[in-house]
């Protein structure tokens, strides 16, 4: 690799490692009951978010799923604000109201995780249509799992995007399973790119474990989208190394299959490539790791220092013009801490 390309690849390695270490910490904190609710980690799939997000501009938009810690982090939402959100604290990026599955940050145009499978697709269409109407050449990158492909909202969205030639980059994270249901048990056509092609959307499969391949594909597709060529679709073939969520007996796949995919860990793959080319000297790798560890540590410290929003404020923000009011005017039905 030439020096510039090596530097760039090291940057991607750094980004993937940020997600990996951050989520490993999340799992630990979940086990310690610091994080509650439902949590889904992206471990194994980091190359997808890292590759695609590296190609986006600040004015572009990102829409994701409930497995979105990595997307938020790489989009620039501070790790501390993400973690505090997962703790349910008011210092979080949604004041603690979103939690792990509903991270949101308008400043970085990160328009949400979404706990409803396929829930993000139609709204991505709306963002893109608004951009198009305003004559802005921006891209809306919309991430969703292959499980979402079975929902009606997926098909409505693809049709609308193609019909109106909207600037959407569809990023299907095909990790082969929707919870415990394997792709072949849920789709008659398992070649997902073909489904998009049926809507006249240019689509192609990409090795989602190879961050450089993901980036290359996203850059090409994104340039076309930005240039007014209408929606494009990437089927990113990847694998989740961990359970679907924190409760999952994993009865639906063989250990050997997981082991096979672990061989293709996207972080190990890129690291090996760089090392083989002599582009990742040990001290550099140590530095990358140290900086990631420091970031995670700082995020934990930030979250640990967080506070719950006052119970009395729970009725705020439900409506624009009714802040601080409740639909019930009697004292009885307003949230408050009961004297103990």
């Amino acid at each position, binding site marked *: 690799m030439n020096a510039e390309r090596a530097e760039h690849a090291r940057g991607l390695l750094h980004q993937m490692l940020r997600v990996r270490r951050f989520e490993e910490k999340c799992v630990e904190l979940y086990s310690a009951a610091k994080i509650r609710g439902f949590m889904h980690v992206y471990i194994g799939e980091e190359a997808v978010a890292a590759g695609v997000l590296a190609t986006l501009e600040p004015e572009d938009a990102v829409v994701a799923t409930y497995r979105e810690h990595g997307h938020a982090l790489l989009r620039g939402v501070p790790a501390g604000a993400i973690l505090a959100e997962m703790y349910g604290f008011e210092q979080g990026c949604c004041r603690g109201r979103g939690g792990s599955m509903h991270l949101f940050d308008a400043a970085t145009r990160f328009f949400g995780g979404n706990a409803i499978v396929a829930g993000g697709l139609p709204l991505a269409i709306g963002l893109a249509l608004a951009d198009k109407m305003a004559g802005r050449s921006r891209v809306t990158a919309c991430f969703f799992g292959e499980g979402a492909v079975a929902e009606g909202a997926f098909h409505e969205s693809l049709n609308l995007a193609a019909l109106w030639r909207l600037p959407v980059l569809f990023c299907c994270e095909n990790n082969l399973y929707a919870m415990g249901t394997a792709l072949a048990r849920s789709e008659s056509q398992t070649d997902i790119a073909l489904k998009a092609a049926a809507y006249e959307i240019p689509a192609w499969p990409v090795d989602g474990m190879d961050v450089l391949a993901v980036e290359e594909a996203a850059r090409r597709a994104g340039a076309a989208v930005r240039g007014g060529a209408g929606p494009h679709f990437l089927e990113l073939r990847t694998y989740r190394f961990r359970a679907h969520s924190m409760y999952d007996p994993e009865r639906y796949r063989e250990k050997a299959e997981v082991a096979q995919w672990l061989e293709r860990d996207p972080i190990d793959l890129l690291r090996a490539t760089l090392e083989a080319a002599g582009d990742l000297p040990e001290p550099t790798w140590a530095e990358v790791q140290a900086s990631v560890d420091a970031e995670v540590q700082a995020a934990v410290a930030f979250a640990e220092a967080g506070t719950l929003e006052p119970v009395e404020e729970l009725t705020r923000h439900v409506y624009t013009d009714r802040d601080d009011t*409740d639909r019930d005017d009697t004292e009885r039905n307003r949230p408050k801490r009961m004297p103990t």
Partner: protein
Amino acid sequence: MTLHDTAPTPLRAPVTLTMAAALNAAIQDAMRDDPTVVLFGEDVGPLGGVFRVTDGLYAEFGESRVSDSPLAESGIVGTAIGMAMYGLRPVVEMQFDAFSYPAFEQIVSHVAKMRNRTRGRVQLPLVIRIPYAGDIGGVEHHSDSSEAYWTATPGLTVVSPSNPADAYSMLREAITSDDPVIFLEPKSRYWAKAELSLPVRTAPMNTAAVLREGTDVTLIAYGPTVKTALATAELAVAEGLSIEVIDLRSLSPFDDETVGASVRKTSRAAVLHEAAQFGGYGAEVAARLTERNFFHLAAPILRITGFDIPYPSPKLEEYFLPTPDRILAALGTWEWN
């Protein structure tokens, strides 16, 4: 014919079951007894469902009667309609309360209306099981109490058990019912245990049960709030207050007879639910009881409920849910003389 008309089956030896296991046994027994009962939904097969309610059924009955559906809630319910029209008895699962909303159109526009639309020529003997309500450290979409959407829809029978015995008996009855049943399973009670001799039969599904007798106040609860009501009644003893606790069991139809009799006896009543108050199910209960029993009431019927907000984050849910303290405080706002 309903389950209650059939000859009782000999009881098996008592076993301790959680509500999830009791539901599982109900589906299993129904499938053994009736080959037209079929089961499908997201991950109900080999995985056995998120709450393990369908555990082992795929192994016993095989792919033809127990199948995993793709993520397509609207398709799941619509398919059940067609199968029911041809005489099968589908039992389908919506994985969590809020995931039933993509199927809303099928449920409200077709499941609820088919019988009326065909002047009774088409029956839909299907059951839609929905884990609902909170208190499990979940978040929005995973803790919703969606009962008012269903009870506001004529044509749907809506029931909710609060304990393992009712869970078994009511689900068996729901499966034999020739009308479609929305079967709401309170998530926080899935792990509640009881010793049961199966096939246990409790009161008919469309009746309310007086779980504790009292003379001063009637607390009307269902599903997840029944436990809260019982705990409140226990605490109230120390305050010299005698609380009668009613478990509605059936939200639609509403058992006017049982609940009305209790309210006329105590002259005071409060309804409990986790769902938001405005336009909630409690409003119907309060209005209905008031219309029928106004001259027996000593005080307005209260609603003690979740607040008018989306379900809060896990660490704040204890302030959202009606608790015995909040209930007793609310009862204290009545004039007592």
